[in-house]
């Protein structure tokens, strides 16, 4: 058995697709681990328990998204496992820090695409009442504005459209989050459009603010579910306030990705126990058992 501390806004990979920590079901789910021989495998989730609601740790910003690493947990880096404090120290000294990752193409699950309407409703609920605002030039490129409206209509959302010379915005009535725990390709499609910020050489670029961890987590988990490779950049690098996510034509098959920054923060955590020993795959990064 192995025990892990995992942030509530993280996702793990079950054999039926990526699932947010808080939505896992103990004794039912099998979750992806890296076995001691280095191979990926699924292990039964023996126990899941809500932990400290205000746990100290570090948010680590990498080229494959971000992760909250609770104090008491390490993460696998190039060389050896490191704590969040050690990563923060290295990042502040401008050292090259690399985190080990599981490539998207290695994640094979039996995931279903699920219900489109429900997936879109979940995405809108995660916006938490904020407007969807797109730079006007983006909204008017390749029918992106029309695609956003189609998502809102399929979700049955009540919305109003506004525009001026810089922006096209949709003010959406907040709706409750519908049930459903698997994150699918539908989430990825919707969230790429709802957070569209640029249209680079024909491919969309998503923009989320650093604190929009749930929205970004759903987007990335959705991309993992549909097997779409991606990369993230954090701007400005010396103090990220935004994440830009870009889809890649082909995944760069690299085991390590750069860390841009790390900051001490507090966040709710869960304690997970797997039946088999190993290291847990969290947000595509590798967290060894704690304690």
């Amino acid at each position, binding site marked *: 058995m192995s025990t892990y501390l995992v942030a509530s806004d993280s996702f793990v990979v079950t054999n039926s697709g990526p699932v947010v920590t808080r939505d896992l079901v103990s004794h039912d789910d099998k979750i992806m681990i890296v076995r001691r021989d280095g191979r990926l495998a699924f292990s039964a989730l023996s126990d899941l328990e809500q932990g400290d609601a205000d746990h100290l740790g570090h948010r680590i910003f990498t080229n494959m998204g971000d992760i909250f690493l609770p104090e008491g947990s390490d993460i696998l880096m190039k060389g050896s496992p490191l704590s969040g404090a050690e990563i923060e120290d290295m*990042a*502040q000294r*401008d050292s090259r820090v690399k985190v080990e990752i599981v490539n998207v193409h290695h994640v094979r699950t039996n995931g279903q695409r699920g219900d489109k309407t429900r997936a879109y409703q979940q995405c809108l609920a995660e916006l938490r009442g*904020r*407007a969807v*605002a797109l*730079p006007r030039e983006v909204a008017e490129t390749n029918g992106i504005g029309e695609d956003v409206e189609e998502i809102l209509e399929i979700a049955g959302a009540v919305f*109003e459209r*506004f*525009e*001026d010379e*810089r*922006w096209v*915005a949709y*003010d959406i009535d907040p709706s409750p989050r519908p049930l459903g725990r698997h994150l699918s390709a539908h989430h990825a499609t919707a969230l790429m459009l709802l957070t569209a*910020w*640029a249209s680079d050489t024909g491919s969309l670029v998503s923009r989320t*603010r650093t604190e929009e961890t749930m929205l970004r987590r759903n987007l990335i988990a959705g991309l993992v579910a549909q097997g779409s490779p991606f990369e993230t950049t954090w*701007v*400005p690098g*010396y*103090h990220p*306030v*935004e994440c830009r996510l870009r889809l890649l034509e082909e995944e760069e098959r690299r085991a390590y990705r750069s860390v841009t*920054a790390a*900051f001490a923060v507090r966040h709710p955590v869960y304690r997970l126990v797997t039946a088999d020993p190993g290291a847990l795959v969290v947000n595509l990064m590798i967290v060894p058992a704690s304690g």
Partner: protein
Amino acid sequence: MPARAPMLVTRRNVKELLAHVGARRLDVDVAQERGLITAAKVSGLWVFASSGADLDSSRQLVAAKCEELVSEWFIAGMSWIPNTAASRLLGAKVTGAVAKLFLRELVRKGRFGALGLLTAEFQPYLALFAWDAAAEVEERVGFMISQLARAGKVASSDLPPPSFTPTNDAWRSHLLHHGEFLGLGVRQGTSLLTWKELA
């Protein structure tokens, strides 16, 4: 002979540094080999200095000046700080480009609080505040949000002043830009309007 003032430059101004240390005719690498100048990477770029001690002392002077400016301005647009800090330094010649690198280093180390803002091209940049002003900044962000919910509009003049008098009023504009960064609405003149108010 009077002591030479410390001088720090980026590669662009390295000839000025060579002249400053009396090595006008030397190549930068030769001057380094002879110990006439030194170089160190700051925020990913090379900074050339009249000595290692000058680099350290100037780094501290720039940090102190940046902290002074951020405190005076309450919420300070990051792009305005380096040149002002460099021009106000006494006893050291530091270019604005070097001050910018030192400031980035300070921000990376968390010496300031930061608000996100957007350029006209939708690129993010930062406005900085002193940590001891964090509560007052948070209060004004909260005021902006509640005023938008109440009236659909907040003018920069509506924002309550902090407990001290900042040396300029740019903090008001930075806060409205931050509102736009947060997606709360759209800026029009010196106001921030909710999307509904735009209609």
